[in-house]
């Protein structure tokens, strides 16, 4: 079933399709339509729960409570709201709560712009006072806002880590045909509080370190199953371009126009920024002479990628085109590559 809808509305529909029953949120551009859509749906359907909270911090903690109680729940935010969400996300990270947070990136830092950026990468991957035991997806089209929202709920409850879906203000507002395929087997949620006394503050370094170690091991074990990427173009190409979210799609259209077979430019797209598909990236970097980074931030995704790259294997040149808080057009990509 196809509908002509915005990415934000697609995300809302994805949440419904995934079996979400509750949303807690605070209006903030450019994510507000998600909250608005949910509010209207909850007005018509007693089964759905909605609360517009006093601020994003409260939303994050209401979300933690609802998820503890075994109900698929989510929130949506952006920019300064994402900053406030870190308090709740830290608690979710420590307790491995399967919360879903949809983040529609906007220019930062501070209240920057309401439009677009790819500047909340580090914040969503590592923003709490912990080790970033979170799952982060990066969507690039309104269709993906639907598909990846469903994916986010599945991963959250399957692997039990707070899951974030990164979009941006442009794909949030952009309208296009979205295929609303129902997911095949939505995973069941479970009550995580029943019969339990749960704390997240410990008295001894040893006790807490042991507990954290178990969480880290679980994350490492799940990482290969969660990590996702896609590749366009030929392995024999000399250049590898890496881009995520909507920048990836711009890059792809640019390459399709100047090198339709992908003979000279292969594109590696991380679909999960956390866990990052580092092993796969290294595989595709083999024999490449040049690596290009394109992102609408000052190298946030590049920082994560570089930590994974085996520079003893890849000895090529690294080139970057960073445009913090600015979007790319196809012409910009072509100009940079040709320049």
């Amino acid at each position: 079933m196809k509908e002509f809808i915005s990415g934000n509305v697609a995300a809302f529909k994805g949440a419904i399709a995934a079996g979400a029953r509750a949303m807690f949120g605070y209006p903030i551009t450019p994510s507000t339509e998600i909250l608005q859509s949910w509010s209207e749906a909850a007005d018509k359907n007693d089964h759905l729960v909605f609360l517009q909270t006093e601020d994003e911090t409260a939303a994050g903690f209401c979300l933690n409570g609802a998820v503890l109680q075994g109900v698929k729940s989510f929130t949506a935010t952006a920019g300064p709201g994402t900053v406030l969400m870190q308090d709740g996300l830290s608690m979710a990270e420590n307790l491995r709560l399967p919360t879903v947070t949809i983040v529609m990136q906007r220019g930062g830092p501070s209240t920057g712009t309401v439009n677009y950026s790819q500047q909340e990468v580090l914040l969503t991957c590592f923003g709490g006072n912990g080790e970033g035991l979170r799952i982060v997806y990066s969507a690039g089209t309104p269709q993906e806002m639907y598909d990846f929202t469903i994916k986010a709920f599945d991963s959250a409850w399957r692997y039990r880590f707070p899951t974030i879906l990164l979009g941006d203000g442009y794909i949030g507002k952009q309208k296009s045909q979205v295929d609303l395929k129902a997911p095949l087997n939505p995973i069941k949620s479970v009550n995580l509080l029943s019969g339990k006394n749960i704390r997240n503050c410990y008295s001894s370094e040893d006790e807490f370190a042991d507990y954290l170690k178990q969480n880290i091991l679980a994350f490492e074990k799940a990482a290969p199953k969660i990590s996702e990427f896609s590749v366009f173009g030929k392995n024999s190409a000399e250049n590898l371009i890496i881009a995520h979210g909507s920048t990836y799609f711009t890059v792809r259209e640019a390459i399709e126009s100047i090198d339709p077979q992908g003979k000279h430019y292969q594109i590696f797209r991380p679909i999960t920024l956390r866990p990052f598909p580092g092993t796969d990236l290294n595989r595709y970097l083999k024999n490449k002479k040049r690596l290009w980074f394109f992102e609408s931030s000052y190298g946030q995704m590049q920082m994560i990628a570089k930590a994974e790259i085996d520079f003893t294997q890849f000895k090529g040149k690294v080139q970057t085109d960073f445009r913090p808080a600015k979007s790319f057009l196809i012409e910009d990509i072509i100009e940079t590559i040709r320049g």
Partner: protein
Amino acid sequence: MNILLAGEGGQGIQTIAETLAYAASLSGLNSSYLPQFGVEQRGTPSVAFVIIDKKPFSANRFKIADIAIVLRERAITRVVDQINPKTTLVFDSSTINRELLPKNHGRLLAIPATKIAKENLQPKVFNTIVLGAICKLIPGLDEAVIFESLKHFLGKKFIQSPALAEMNKKALDLGFKFVFEKDKFSAPSFQVSSKPITVVDEGKKSTVYPSLCKGCGICIEKCPVGAISFSEEIGFFGNSVPKIDHKKCILCHNCSVFCPDTAITIEKKSK
């Protein structure tokens, strides 16, 4: 020299440790003091790391202690991994059962500090007695510099109460003069009974749980007829535990209603 102190929140472990470290710096040595404890204000292990050296250093913790001092049975777990056959292990023999100590120590010394404090001065200067005793083990420190250091931390209280200053001086002296038990150790006489104390008398049955009682004294305060007073029994924090005079008791139940630790109760009991 690495000195590890382990006891329980409320015993004054940190005061001992800080005083030692500061005394060392007053004596011209380099020293460091690091506290380590949990969120609870009372009741969970209170540990301190003190390092004293002629040469400058930057560490604040260490793996193996040269001297390890254990002042509460519940804190033994915190020293087990930090001693080896070169460590001098010092413990309070009046409250700690020697059999529960780890075996891989060097010299084993004891001072029944809780007993000495209770019998000669007051329980609250227990830590000053320990301080006096252990300063003998640290080259470069003497009684005078320890008291100087103590005044630095408790000075205001000493000015307000000269009696307190006097008591601390006496406690320090007692500890300093005490010859450590080496081969024969006092049997722990201040141990918490795990069984409740039940008394049936005057048609009433009272139950007190020493293992729950922390000696806050609220039951005594709230008894309208003054039927409750402290006994010789030892409670969870090494405190005194109350007992009820069944004759005076009017079964108002204030004691059990107010007790924060559900440690005391009394009911009618026909024989």
